[in-house]
């Protein structure tokens, strides 16, 4: 007990030093993250190159200021994953980028890692369930839909071919002369029709049919 008394001051000093160090690091971290929102980015394959507004980032959590961000995940042999997200205060985002294999080697790799693909898909689905407005967040165009005027009608429905449940299909009901006008309207809203599966009601492709 006497021995402990002898080192009491030393123990206090060491404690104060450790506390000061931790407090300083904590303060710096809080300062660095102040006003920022967390974006959790993961990709499959895990060694894919992920960029946030063309700036390479590591998989995991990144802190960004609120705004719109373009996320791209790339890997040789796989189709690029691209998504634009709106990050707002109190609205952290989680993106699980599943890259679709294109080359033979990539397809082989995907087959060998099908369990990981299944896990990733389950993870993505559970995230979708935890956020009812996820589809709307992922497809801000839905705020404009349905849209109807005298010439055409634009609506949407969930994309039944998408396992993650995040994608939508844009449906356009227009006569031949006004299909391009409906596409122009989508551009006018600031969205790129390329990002969606678009179906035209009562239309058959005359070249491929």
């Amino acid at each position: 007990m006497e021995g402990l008394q002898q080192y009491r001051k030393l123990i206090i000093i060491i404690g104060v030093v450790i506390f000061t160090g931790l407090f300083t690091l904590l303060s710096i971290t809080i300062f660095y993250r102040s006003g920022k929102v967390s974006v959790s980015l993961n990709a499959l394959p895990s060694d894919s190159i992920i960029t946030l507004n063309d700036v390479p980032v590591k998989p995991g959590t990144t802190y960004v200021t609120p705004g719109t961000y373009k996320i791209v995940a790339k890997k040789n042999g796989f189709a690029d994953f691209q998504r634009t997200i709106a990050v707002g205060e109190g609205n952290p985002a989680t993106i699980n980028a599943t890259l679709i294999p294109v080359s033979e080697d990539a397809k082989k790799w995907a087959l060998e890692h099908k369990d990981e693909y299944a896990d990733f898909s389950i993870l993505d689905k559970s995230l979708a369930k935890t956020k009812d407005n996820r589809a709307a967040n992922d497809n801000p165009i839905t705020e404009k839909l349905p849209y109807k005027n005298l010439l055409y009608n634009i609506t949407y429905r969930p994309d039944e071919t998408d396992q993650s449940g995040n994608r939508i299909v844009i449906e356009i009901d227009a006569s031949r002369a006004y299909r391009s006008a409906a596409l122009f309207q989508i551009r006018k809203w600031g969205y790129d029709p390329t990002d969606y599966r678009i179906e035209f009601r009562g239309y058959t492709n005359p070249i491929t049919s």
Partner: protein
Amino acid sequence: MKKIALYIGIITLAIIVVIALIVQFFSQPEQKAQAVSFTLAQSHVNVSIRQDTSEAREVALLTESKALTLPSGKYYYVVTGERIAPSTVKFTVPNDTQFTIDPDYSSSYLASLLESEVPAIDQLLETRYAKIANGYVIHPGKFYRQGQWYATIISDRRSTNEDPYDEYRIVLNKQNGNWVAVTTPEISLSAVTFPGVPHEILSDINKATIESLADWGNQDSLR
């Protein structure tokens, strides 16, 4: 007395440790020099690496792939070459350490490929889709990247300003020296349906009109 000296020593050491921690935290991005590799995927390309300062001092001029040891800081490189339009890319050391430089060809060079490549492409499309030969016009399209991607618009011969018909977009890719249609002809090409085609190509051809494609192909003033 000895105790006081001991305490002072410990406190001094502790302060040094805390300061070192803070300095280390803030100085992480500006650590030592870093090896940065530049892989030139094309020959006849020059890469000038410069410091991103007001002086823009040239650090190196590369004509072949090379790894350089660069001190931490901001840089940019300028790629120039016969077939390409000059382009600039900013980077930071030590954050960015690997670059594969494979620039796209310039629009004027790509446009010069039309004459030699388009007849084979049109023939392929007419063979692949028999209906095109009878009722449609394949317009001169647009090459992308290093000329291995081509996209064009197919229009209906019956189309007039008063009675417009749908226009169809299609993308082709040159594989092992042969052109292959990698999409079907569609009014709007979807990146979801055709994930193997670069998004920017799909987006660009979806935006294009017959007139804008004709303007792109007529770039004599740029050459």
